[in-house]
């Protein structure tokens, strides 16, 4: 059994008004040193296959086909074996 953790992030070229709004909130708290807040998504899932390679392949494909929209998002993931 494997556990995948995927981060889906906006490409650098995409404007992120949500991130900007949160940045203003952070500044309102007094942390004016904080810049370039950008918001992404975190997805985790279990992959019930025998090998890590298979789990990585499935994680990559699921990320490419569904979790991330390649026009505006990038993704990165880790896969770990979990005790059964």
């Amino acid at each position, binding site marked *: 059994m494997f556990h995948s953790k995927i981060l889906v992030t906006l490409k650098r070229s995409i*404007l992120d*008004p949500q991130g900007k709004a949160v940045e203003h909130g952070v500044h309102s708290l007094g942390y004016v040193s904080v810049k370039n807040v950008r918001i992404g998504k975190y997805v985790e899932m279990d992959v019930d296959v025998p090998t890590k390679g298979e789990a990585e392949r499935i994680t990559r494909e699921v990320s490419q086909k569904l979790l991330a929209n390649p026009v505006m998002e990038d993704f990165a993931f880790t896969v770990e074996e979990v005790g059964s």
Partner: protein
Amino acid sequence: MKLKFAVVVFPGSNCDHDAHYVTETILDQQSRLIWHKESSLGDVDVVILPGGFSYGDYLRCGALARFSPIMKDVVQFAENGGVVLGICNGFQILVEAGLLPGVLLRNSSLKFACKYVRLRVENAETRFTSRCKKGDVLEIPIAHGDGNYFTDPETLKRLEENGQIVFRYCERDGRITESANPNGSLSNIAGVINERGNVLGMMPHPERASDPVLGHTDGRKIFDSIIESFILARTTFSSGHQSQLVRKEGVGV
């Protein structure tokens, strides 16, 4: 001759009944609702993907709806040249399905925009705008939180060169300005068509501007254009001139 419209209903669609009402009752065509789980569209002339919040906009707007069972047939229908109109969430589903280029991002204001806007018709040669003239200003309502159209510079250039930008947000006098843009869309883009000209996606709701009782009827021109395009396709011309219009009685255009 009545066209057969099919309005796909996803879980969370909420503009399906308006689209059905306009096509069946106002335009007097055949129209039916198709549940997203059906595997086949059946015999249909025009597919409408309506507005709403399919799958609650989970993950991304339209991201999950594009994998609904019916979408296999919708994509096949579009690839075979079938006419598909995506309205609002329908537009989002079309871009997620890859039937139209680009993406619809969160409105740059972060606010849900619900109001009448003015659209300039940039291309009146399409089968969705033949009843309009280039430069016409249509007043149609929007209601969306994620209507901010975006694509890369190369695709934008291609869309412009091919005339694939069909509607742009504009002022009442037709000028394209930032203040007329309700959501930050690139180049004020409100609606695009595919290269082949059979699939159109638009964020505004023409089905909410087709009934005279509601006070706005500019949206009806889009439906009338679609109907007209079928008459043109089924009629032979002696001169072969595309711009000649032949009206058939009893179709309601």
